[in-house]
């Protein structure tokens, strides 16, 4: 299967063309944010205040990179477990976020919000952090420096490989894969 290519910020056409199981290469800007940053972003939204980054059409990568060694742009940078971000995700999607990169299952609420707001959830390879760091060409902290590895970073990426898990039609790659390869009967 050929790779699809996307370049954030994403247009509605780009997002709605993606399907669960698609292999995608991302080039352009993605933002990092983990638990603590999500909490702050949602707090600002609830207060009706401006966010430190423009979310519209953007992709958030759930990652807390390892520190860069001298001569490196960024340390190893694989995905963290997405479900921890579930309580905050619907509000961010409502605010314009179009894509998320992480690993693992999303809640029913998040899957519904992905459909409602026409967004996409993609998985990067958990544990393949040295490989993924090679796709990152530039990094700068844009907000919440005090959070250290959990700060919001602006990453420039070239051909970052991900796989679509949840598309805007409600398909779920984890569910499809599990049903296809399961050998024991479902109870």
């Amino acid at each position: 299967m050929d790779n699809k290519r996307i370049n954030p910020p994403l247009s509605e056409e780009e997002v709605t063309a993606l399907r669960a199981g698609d292999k995608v290469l991302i080039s352009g800007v993605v933002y990092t944010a983990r638990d603590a940053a999500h909490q702050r972003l949602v707090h600002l939204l609830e207060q009706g205040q401006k966010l430190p980054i423009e979310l519209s059409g953007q992709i958030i990568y759930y990652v807390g990179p390892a520190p860069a060694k001298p001569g490196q742009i960024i340390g190893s940078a694989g995905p963290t477990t997405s479900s921890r971000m579930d309580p905050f995700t619907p509000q961010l999607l409502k605010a314009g976020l179009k894509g998320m990169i992480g690993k693992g299952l999303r809640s029913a609420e998040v899957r519904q919000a992905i459909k409602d707001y026409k967004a996409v959830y993609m998985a990067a390879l958990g544990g393949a952090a040295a490989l993924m760091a090679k796709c990152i060409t530039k990094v700068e902290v844009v907000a919440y420096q005090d959070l250290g590895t959990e700060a919001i970073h602006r990453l420039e990426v070239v051909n970052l490989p991900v796989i679509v898990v949840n598309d805007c039609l409600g398909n779920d790659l984890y569910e499809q894969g599990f049903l296809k390869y399961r050998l024991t009967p479902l109870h």
Partner: protein
Amino acid sequence: MKLITYQTIVAEVKKLCIEANYFLGDDVKTALKTAWHNEISPLGKEILSALYRNSLIASEEQVPICQDTGTAVVFLEIGQDVRIEGGYIYDAVNEGVRQGYTEGYLRKSMVNHPLCRRNTGDNTPAIIHAEIVPGNQLAITVAPKGGGSENMSALAMLTPSAGWTGVKQFVIETVRKAGANPCPPLIVGVGIGGNFEKAALLAKKSLLREVGSPNRDAELAELEKELIKEINNLGIGPQGFGGSVTALAVHIELYPCHIASLPVAVNLNCHVARHKSVIL
């Protein structure tokens, strides 16, 4: 009586923290190759080879295999005829962790308080398990453990009548519920017996065994085989995208227990089963 200095322990722990995070064990690499042969899903195969490639990049460039360089779990086996000079052994371990995580450019993931959550900045404190053993040697094992797989671990206090069937159901259910979250293919550590805390420690210690090495007890080795077969039948597959390899190995450890109890702990490890040891 053997004398081991505080500074020696600091230096060894520092080295082990760095090496464990940069260099994936040969046992895991071999297990990934075997898994690649056994995997029937084309996407699963692709992922297994990406994980293998990732480990080669990490060791060649001396960078962490995974960005989550973990909680520093340190096992000490202290010979009863060993004397530590120059300071407290736990301080030496923490100093080694501090230096290893800072100088090795490893991610610092420890927060000072589970609720207030301020990063300690140097990945201390380590989680230290010390045991007094016969002899005059000190064995140190550093086993960095990431949060993703640790979060999916579970413990159950079963009733004795649940027996092997109950244990098996609990282990399989824990893996099924974890799904893609702990980054399969997994190494599944199972501790059966002891009590509440002993079972958890047995499960964790079982992860230190060479990946896929059967339990020395033939009966337990059979149970391990039974479990891995059923876990792989779940269809979760590499990274949860579906496939025939959900776990690389199941390791069971067992201990006697109370007449009223049947504790079972399942400690999940992603494919990055990191641990390095030294004997002083």
